[in-house]
């Protein structure tokens, strides 16, 4: 191949007089045959610039994931096995996946719809001007106000002696005698929505801003009613971003550990809690690799949601800048 020959010959040229070959390389474009290897050497240097970052990400992110996937599919002796994955499909682990998916779906749809309406009201609602920056800032705070303090806040609100619980009891509604607890599915979802709602608002607001006024006016000029506009234009345009945002919320809720842990003291059967118990040795388990396979299952589910989000975002970009 000519390319190979070129490389070989210029390399030999360089080995003959390395100094000469290197000298003119620094300031401007090198010329002639010696160009190729010098470019590639500079190329190597160029690529070296990102090595520290990639090495860091590999060590603290990629290798741990590879290790846990490897451990999921091997026995202690190093043989291949599907036993660890199969264990996820039975008993309490199966139940934990179902419960995690349930609370994630409920809080994603609940927080998603709530967030959509609030964002629409803020973006297109013709309210006072200060609403939008105020909402954005508050959403930034609330979406980061998760974990332990959020759990405390909801215990103070809707716990057995919470302010709202007591208030409702005063007007004759005893929610705790109707089976409500703060770590039931309802209580958990209600708490999750506190960080789901602001995330939804932040994610969906740009898409709502992208809904052009002209489209609505054009539809109105052609005699469309409000519902026709939404059904035929607004919703189809919004649908990918809406679905993408809710998928993101699902993954967000699915990963949550600190909030449900603090709400229930670890007494609730969700996948992250199960993993936490395996890790901290709170439970006696026969198979120490169960933590790895649980984490593997989690990564698979969250990975699919992030992928779906990315694809839906790309689809959404078709109409909304």
């Amino acid at each position: 191949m000519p390319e190979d020959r070129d490389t070989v010959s210029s390399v030999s040229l360089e080995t003959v007089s390395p100094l000469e070959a290197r000298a003119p390389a620094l300031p401007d474009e090198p010329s002639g045959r010696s160009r190729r290897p010098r470019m590639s050497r500079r190329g190597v240097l160029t690529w070296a610039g990102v090595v520290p970052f990639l090495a860091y990400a590999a060590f603290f992110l990629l290798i741990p994931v590879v290790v846990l996937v490897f451990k999921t599919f091997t026995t202690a002796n190093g043989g291949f096995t599907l036993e660890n994955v199969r264990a996820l499909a039975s008993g309490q682990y199966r139940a934990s996946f179902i419960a995690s998916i349930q609370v994630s779906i409920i809080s994603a749809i609940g927080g998603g719809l709530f967030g959509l309406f609030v964002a629409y009201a803020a973006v297109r609602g013709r309210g006072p001007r200060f609403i939008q920056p105020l909402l954005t800032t508050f959403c930034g705070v609330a979406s980061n106000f998760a974990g332990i303090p959020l759990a405390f806040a909801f215990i103070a609100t809707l716990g057995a002696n919470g302010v709202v619980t007591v208030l409702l009891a005063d007007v004759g509604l005893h929610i705790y005698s109707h089976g409500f607890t703060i770590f039931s599915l309802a209580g958990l979802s209600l708490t999750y929505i506190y960080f789901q709602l602001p995330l939804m608002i932040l994610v969906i607001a740009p898409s709502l801003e992208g809904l052009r006024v002209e489209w609505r006016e054009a539809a109105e000029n052609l005699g469309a009613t409000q519902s026709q506009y939404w059904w035929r234009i607004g919703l189809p345009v919004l649908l990918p971003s809406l679905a993408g945002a809710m998928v993101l919320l699902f993954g967000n809720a699915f990963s949550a550990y600190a909030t449900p842990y603090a709400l229930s003291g670890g007494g609730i059967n969700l996948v992250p809690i199960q993993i936490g118990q395996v890790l901290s040795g709170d439970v006696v388990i026969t198979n120490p690799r169960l933590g790895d396979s649980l984490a593997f299952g989690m990564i698979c589910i969250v990975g699919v949601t992030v992928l779906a989000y990315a694809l839906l975002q790309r689809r959404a970009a078709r109409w909304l800048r």
Partner: protein
Amino acid sequence: MASVAAPAEKKARRAPREHRRPSFWTIFWLIMAALYFLIPLYSTLQFSLETGQHSYGFKWYGQTFADPMFRTSFLFSLRLAVETVIIGLVLMVPTVYWVHLRLPQLRPLMDVVSILPFVVPPVALVVGLSGVFNVLPWMLSNSQILAFIYVILALPFTYRSLDAGMRAINVKTLTEAAQSVGAPGWKTLLFVILPNIRTAMLSGAFLTLAIVMGEYTISSLLLFNTFAVYMYYIGNTEAQPAAALAIISFTLTWGAMMGLFLLSRRRGRGSSPGVTAVSR
């Protein structure tokens, strides 16, 4: 599709609409959101101020601030936050600069790597890391390791804000200008690029601060006594100081986000890159 005239046009169209009164549903949903945001905060605040049947005061706050464990864990988390910010910036600023300057074809890869921490939930990351630490147990002997892990947690936000910051300035032109007057590479980065992306760096730092100060999953499972771990411990023993701690923590997050917001305002029309990091 997106014409250059779009923003001006939008403004012109919006102006007459301002005169119409907001609809019932606008008011309804905004009030619902306000209630949902504020009621838990109000409840926590009231709970934290209750000192007796009908008396209120700052007793629980005083008790909290006087607790030596509060100070230790708070300062520990604060130190971790500062370390995370520094490690993250030292690692990311040159990388993002280099990618913008020389390796734009690597941008898709960077985007993917920076989104990966979202794919691996913290609790799953701890599982994988314990597998690594089993082989290298000395790494766990120093609490500094947490800062190195937190850099990964904060990576999506740090990367997004730095990427947006570098996109806003013309990295290539600035670098060429610096080189034409004879500045070596490191000087270009330090004295030309850095001052121009100060806002992006700060907004990344504020978000990192908010994340690290509240981080519970990793530190509790690796058995380090961070601020959040202390908070959980207090919540298990006494309810009212716990409420006070929740308020303190909220104030902290609020402060960090206000910093972010003020930064984005000072920058003019730039939307704060950090807060909406997830969306882009």
